[in-house]
């Protein structure tokens, strides 16, 4: 009988990524509803000390798979190990992150285990002892609520920046377990030859707390400077709509929308973006949306918590000055 909730964390260069705390916190909430234990899983190289802090976010047990070959994520190694761990203990719920790494990892693991999986979920619940997940489909034009049909573990990934993180409680402790696994070098069919850091040095859009995005209304690549100035003052990353990317004003990795990135920041400021369905698809789960647009009829205003009707070339620099007072 499958038992227990597992939250699979994500590390890079020896530090946990934010999604890890979100997963452990959400795992805690689900484990409480089920009346079961929460296990956090850590895969990496020399992560044992760092792993201990997960107890503060609610983990009862922490399984650490530690191996010099695991410092950098590879699909082959991580799926092989996770497959072995899951088969040995048969957890009931397996939560992972819908980050770039987590999507690759979970998709292959679902295939390996032959189980159902719900990708990029925005809410979880327990009904009749089973996991229920809510996820946007058709790029957020609809949502589906899904459950699992005699399929264990019940696997799902959580959209980054959606699940709230519990306040760390230093009084909590957890059992630390060394993962038992075998990893044959012959099973490793891919290798990471190089990791090239993005030159911008900004937080990636999918993890950013605040995003300032520009669209066709920016009129040209040089004008994104005013968005970058505002972003610098409030600590935001800069995104773009499809039209701005297709015009060659911004790189592909900056595109927010149905054929770009799906983001979920606390603050999303859309400047000169009309709000085409394809763009709304990528940002509609943002917590607070601000729209700045000359056209009072632009569809983006229907999604906005705060709308400013005006010329962005006047409003944005004025906003940059106005926010300085609070920083």
């Amino acid at each position, binding site marked *: 009988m499958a038992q227990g909730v597992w939250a699979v964390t994500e590390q890079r260069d020896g530090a946990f990524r934010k999604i890890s705390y979100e997963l452990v916190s959400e795992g805690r909430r689900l484990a409480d509803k089920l009346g079961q234990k929460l296990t956090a899983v850590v895969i990496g190289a020399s992560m044992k000390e760092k792993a201990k802090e997960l107890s503060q976010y609610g983990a009862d047990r922490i399984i650490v798979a530690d191996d010099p070959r695991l410092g950098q994520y590879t*699909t082959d190694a991580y799926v092989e190990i996770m497959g072995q761990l899951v088969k040995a203990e048969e957890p009931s719920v397996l939560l992972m992150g819908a980050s*770039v790494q987590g*999507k*690759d990892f979970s998709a*292959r693991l*679902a*295939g390996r285990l*032959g*189980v*159902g999986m719900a*990708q*990029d979920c925005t809410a979880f619940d327990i009904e009749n002892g089973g996991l229920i997940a809510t996820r*946007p*489909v*058709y790029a*957020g*034009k*609809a*949502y589906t609520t*899904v459950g*699992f*049909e*005699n*399929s264990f573990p019940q696997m799902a990934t959580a959209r980054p920046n959606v699940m709230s993180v519990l306040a760390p409680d230093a009084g909590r402790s957890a059992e630390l377990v060394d993962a038992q696994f075998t990893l044959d070098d012959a099973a490793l*069919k*891919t*290798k*990471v*030859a*190089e*990791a090239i850091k*993005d030159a911008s040095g900004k*937080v*990636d859009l*999918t993890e950013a707390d605040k995003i300032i995005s520009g669209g066709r209304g920016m009129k040209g690549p040089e004008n994104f400077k005013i968005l970058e100035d505002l972003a610098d003052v*409030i600590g935001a990353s800069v995104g773009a709509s499809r039209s701005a990317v297709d015009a060659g004003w911004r790189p*592909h*990795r900056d595109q927010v929308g*149905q*054929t*770009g990135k799906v983001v979920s920041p606390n603050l999303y400021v859309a400047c000169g973006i009309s709000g085409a*369905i*394809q763009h709304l698809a990528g940002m509609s789960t943002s917590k607070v*949306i601000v729209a700045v647009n000359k056209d009072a009829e632009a569809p983006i*205003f229907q*999604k*906005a*918590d*705060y*709308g*400013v*009707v005006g010329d962005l070339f*006047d409003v*944005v620099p*004025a*906003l940059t000055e*106005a*926010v300085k007072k*609070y*920083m």
Partner: protein
Amino acid sequence: MKIIVCLKQVPDTETQIKIAPGGEKIVTDDIKWVMNPYDEFGVEEALRLKEKFGGDVTVIGMGPKRVTESIRTALAMGADKGILISDAALEGSDSLGTAKALAAVIKGLQFDIIFTGQRGIDEDQGLTGACIADLLGIPQVSLAVKLEVAADGKSVKVNRPVEGQTLVVEAQLPVLITTQKGLNEPRYASLPGIMKAKKKPLEEKALKDLGLDPAEVGLGGRKLKIIKITPPPARAEGKIVQGETPQDKATELARLLHEEAKLI
């Protein structure tokens, strides 16, 4: 080089999604069906590799008869052969069931590289490619924005952006690669291409041709069950920030973001 491209047919991005009575399906009557945009990058990349290394490109689609149109589009772009997997008993398959059907067909073919889109823009699961790779026991590299096959045609280097960095991943062929925007600019089918496509082979396969247990696929084989489909949650009514001048509006917005939203 033998290249396979898996493609899905999905509602066009402009489609308004309407939920059917009962709340378990969407209304499909007025939908304009197109090739999944992410799959177009796979077709294009396959054609470029064929132009460089020779060989052929086989396109495999699954679904009702209308999927033939998307396969023909790929043939018109330059692919050599199409396979449609179509059977009422396969309808309603989840990602894993779909992967099983596609992998069953692929097992009977020769291949060096398989392309799939990184995800279908309908269900947004992004599972099928990885599940096919696992069923075939070959490596996968997801979210490619650049790929370079070695001159000897035996290995590939793929650039895949992950948050804040780009990883350059090396893999031996055969490999499955999932494609995304930035990899290339898919070509349009030319008129002669469209004419030629009509004469290219397009084979149809049913469930009985796949050697699969019918209980593993289709609605009955679903491991993930849809409980309900709902419209997106409504957002609270927003407010238009008032002010005489752009400066006034900006000052008021800053105040609201600080005092009300508590974000700055």
